[in-house]
């Protein structure tokens, strides 16, 4: 049997039935990782993983375990992991062995899950192609010449190529959903405030949210159970009860009201992608869902809004990287300015510097109102559009990205790269939950369907996705390439 094709749900059963041990499972994935040519990992923590698996097997033997005990996973290298390099894909943190655990890392450890390693990503999560990593680009497992999407490209490629049963991701403007779509896996960005941000290296604090990247929606529900919840170390974590996300996966979609934003199906959308999306919508219709058009007029302004808000926050969030307390420090600084200027210029990559500069400018005296404040107002309008739409529909659906994965190195200009984020950004600006689920192929490359829910509606989204996956098998297809 091909263990690696099993979903997390199936692996949990396998461990329970003693079909295999956690050590066997872990070794199997480690072997696959070692053969992989995708550059999906920045660090493979082989020894740690085997030790954790061993510990998990002991716990399972004693019956002192949770469902996820012994399940291997890949952790995006943006989550601090005590004693393990945490680079955020940057030269700045190439030497950074985190002295503390992110809340998420801590939660996973306390369930005795097995960390296989830390996945590759766009530097500080800034990018849509994974080409902005200090550790080189990740390759799309469906076609090694293509990008896997970003910024959680390593995580998406790892799950798609079955070298990890699931992975963590973070989504600031689409960084879970877009690579999930481009690699043909399931990705969920929860409602802002659902998952703790403590120990997740900040890109844009009011937009960042962590979520699961899995083969199936059911797996996403299982993993979200382990991720979600209030954290008293994060002031922006919601003190709200967390349901068992696997509880609502059996509801019928009969009568579900699905909204299609007309703005998401206008010019710029690749024909092949549109076809896949419309085909998926038809599938939903056949399951009893009611389809109607909605309008999100201001979401068309999501690009300028996001590319002001996120850079402003990042310009400030990344000021701490100054070569003084940790991370990269230039050789022999001659004075304080030299220390700052060279450490930061040598430690950060191009795109990061670009966004820091945009943010510093947009916040600076005389420009704040025209840029930052204006963007905040439009953010409100974008959010209100969704509020209105959700008065008449339960779930909004549309494409995730305008095109399937493009060629590595083919998009050189930043603006063209930003424009490809058009369908995902508004969800972050409004703080809503969103998903991408495999919905078909265009030009032999996977295409995802985006599901957007109202605040705190993860259960509904997960069931909506799960019901689709019960009827279709797009989520079970995997690339041959490792």
């Amino acid at each position, binding site marked *: 049997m091909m263990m690696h094709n099993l979903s997390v749900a199936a692996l949990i059963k396998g461990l329970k039935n003693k079909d295999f041990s956690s050590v066997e499972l872990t070794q199997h994935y480690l072997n696959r990782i070692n053969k992989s040519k995708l550059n999906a990992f920045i660090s493979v923590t082989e020894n740690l993983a085997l030790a954790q698996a061993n510990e998990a097997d002991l716990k399972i033997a004693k019956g002192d375990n949770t469902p996820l005990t012994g399940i291997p996973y890949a952790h995006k290298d943006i*989550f*601090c992991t005590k004693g393990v390099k*945490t680079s*955020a894909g940057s030269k700045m*943190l190439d030497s*950074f062995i*985190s*002295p*503390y655990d*992110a809340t998420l890392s801590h939660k996973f450890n306390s369930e005795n899950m097995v960390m296989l390693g830390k996945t590759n990503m766009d530097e500080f999560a800034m990018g849509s192609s994974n080409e902005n990593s200090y550790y080189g680009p990740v390759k799309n497992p469906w076609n090694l010449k293509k990008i896997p999407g970003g910024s959680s490209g390593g995580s998406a490629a790892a799950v798609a190529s079955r070298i990890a049963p699931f992975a963590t991701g973070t989504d600031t403007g689409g960084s879970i959903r877009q690579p999930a779509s481009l690699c043909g896996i399931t990705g969920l960005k929860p409602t802002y405030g659902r998952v703790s*941000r*403590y*120990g*997740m*290296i*900040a890109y*844009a*604090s*009011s937009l960042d949210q962590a979520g699961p990247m899995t083969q199936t929606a059911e797996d996403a529900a299982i993993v979200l159970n382990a991720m979600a919840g209030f954290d*008293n*170390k*994060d*002031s*922006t974590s919601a003190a709200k009860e967390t349901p068992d996300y696997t509880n609502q996966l059996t509801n019928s979609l009969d009568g579900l009201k699905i909204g299609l934003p007309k703005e998401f199906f206008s010019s710029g959308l690749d024909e092949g992608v549109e076809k896949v999306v419309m085909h998926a919508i038809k599938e939903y219709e056949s399951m009893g869902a009611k389809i109607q058009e909605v309008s999100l007029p201001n979401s068309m302004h999501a690009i300028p809004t996001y590319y002001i808000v996120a850079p*402003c*926050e990042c*310009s*400030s969030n*990344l*000021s*701490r*990287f*100054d070569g*003084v*307390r*940790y991370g990269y420090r230039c050789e022999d600084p001659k004075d*304080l300015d030299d220390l*700052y200027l060279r450490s930061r210029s040598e430690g950060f990559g191009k795109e990061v510097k670009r966004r820091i500069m945009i943010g*510093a400018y947009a*916040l*600076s*005296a005389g420009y*704040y109102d025209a840029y*930052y404040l204006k963007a905040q107002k439009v953010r409100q309008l974008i959010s209100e559009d969704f509020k209105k739409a959700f008065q008449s529909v339960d779930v909004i659906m549309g494409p995730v990205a305008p095109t399937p994965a493009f060629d590595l190195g083919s998009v050189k200009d930043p603006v063209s790269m930003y424009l490809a984020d058009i369908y995902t950004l508004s969800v972050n600006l409004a703080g809503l939950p969103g998903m991408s689920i495999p919905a078909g192929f265009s030009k032999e490359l996977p295409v995802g369907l985006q599901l957007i829910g109202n605040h705190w509606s993860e259960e509904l989204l997960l069931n909506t996705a799960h019901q689709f996956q019960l009827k279709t098998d797009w989520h079970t297809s995997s690339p041959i390439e490792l």
Partner: protein
Amino acid sequence: MTWETVIGLEIHTQLKTKSKIFSGASTEFGAKANTQACAVDLGFPGVLPVLNKEAVRMALRFGLAVNATINKHSIFARKNYFYPDLPKGYQISQFEIPIVGNGAIDIPLDNGEKKMVGITRAHLEEDAGKSIHDLYDDYTAIDLNRAGTPLLEIVSDPDMSNAKEAVAYAKKIHALVQYIDICDGNMQEGSFRCDANVSVRRAGEGLGTRAEIKNINSFKFLEKAINLEVERQIDILEDGGSVAQETRLYDSIKNETRSMRSKEEANDYRYFPDPDLLPVVIDDELLKEIKDRLPELPTEKKARFIDKLGLSEYDAENLTSQKAMADYYEIIIDKGADVKLSANWVMGELSASLNKNQIDIQDSPISASELFNLISRITDNTISGKIAKDVFRLMWDEKRSVDEIIKDQGLEQMTDVGALESSH
């Protein structure tokens, strides 16, 4: 030419919470460098701030004590600048909407009158760490123990027109924060720091350009620094020059103010709401609870001293000018000592000796109950007031009890002499 001086003060008071404003690290003073700086204080990647409840309550206590507007919805903002003792590259502060809005406080003037000084605002923020320049030859050393200590920055209106008024205001605030128990007031340790905004103008003209003087750590230096700065500005203007808007450092050793180059450049702080923190919402219930628990304020105490004890305005003002002195005085009179005589002793002999030896009243070698004993020996005619002064000296120097000294020195007056005297 007549010149007018316009002074506003920004006072940073360190709030006496046990833990920091955004982390659970200790705020205790004097620990080994960097041992009280946790991951949050050091600005590690991924860490997040969570606001200390007590810091908020202390800010509210201050707001209520100066009859200020309380903003029931206040916002934390980031003040962005690079400096090695500022670990995150920004200071979490309040900008557009501070927790405490407009208030006011009365200060006593030399002529016995009062003047009202407006308080523009008071906001919560985190302190920076310390840069130590003289520890290593080629390096500046950074200690981040202080980073994240809660500060209430109290900003006055530019209502003071000379150094004396500025000192009177600073002393008033200094006393108040101790009365309401939000700051220990220790200026040597930097718990109470003043920055002065000083400008001069020709009588009747609009406001002049101001300079901000930093690093003033005593009332004496505050007065000196302001006077120096006023002179400097007048000299410049009388020579036809213009005053630069800048930050100046007061050097108490050289007794001069000088431009701080490092703080000069690019003062573009790029304030914006901190996305790691949500709006601070104060409900009426909390406000009422804090109001109900507010201790007696200096103005209330002063009024009570006048109304209930029959002290003069001058005595009452004097005795309540420092919480510790008022406490000391109240211990004596609570034991039943004569109100006026006790006031004279506390403000006279005791204060003079404390001042001369530069000792705070809390550390007085003669305790309040010892002074009560001495005063009692005067009122019961054991000794005369004149002799009492000698006894006081001996008590101060030798730390012996009143009765011991009286007995050893044979200072008791003849009772009949006392009776004789009183019969006159």
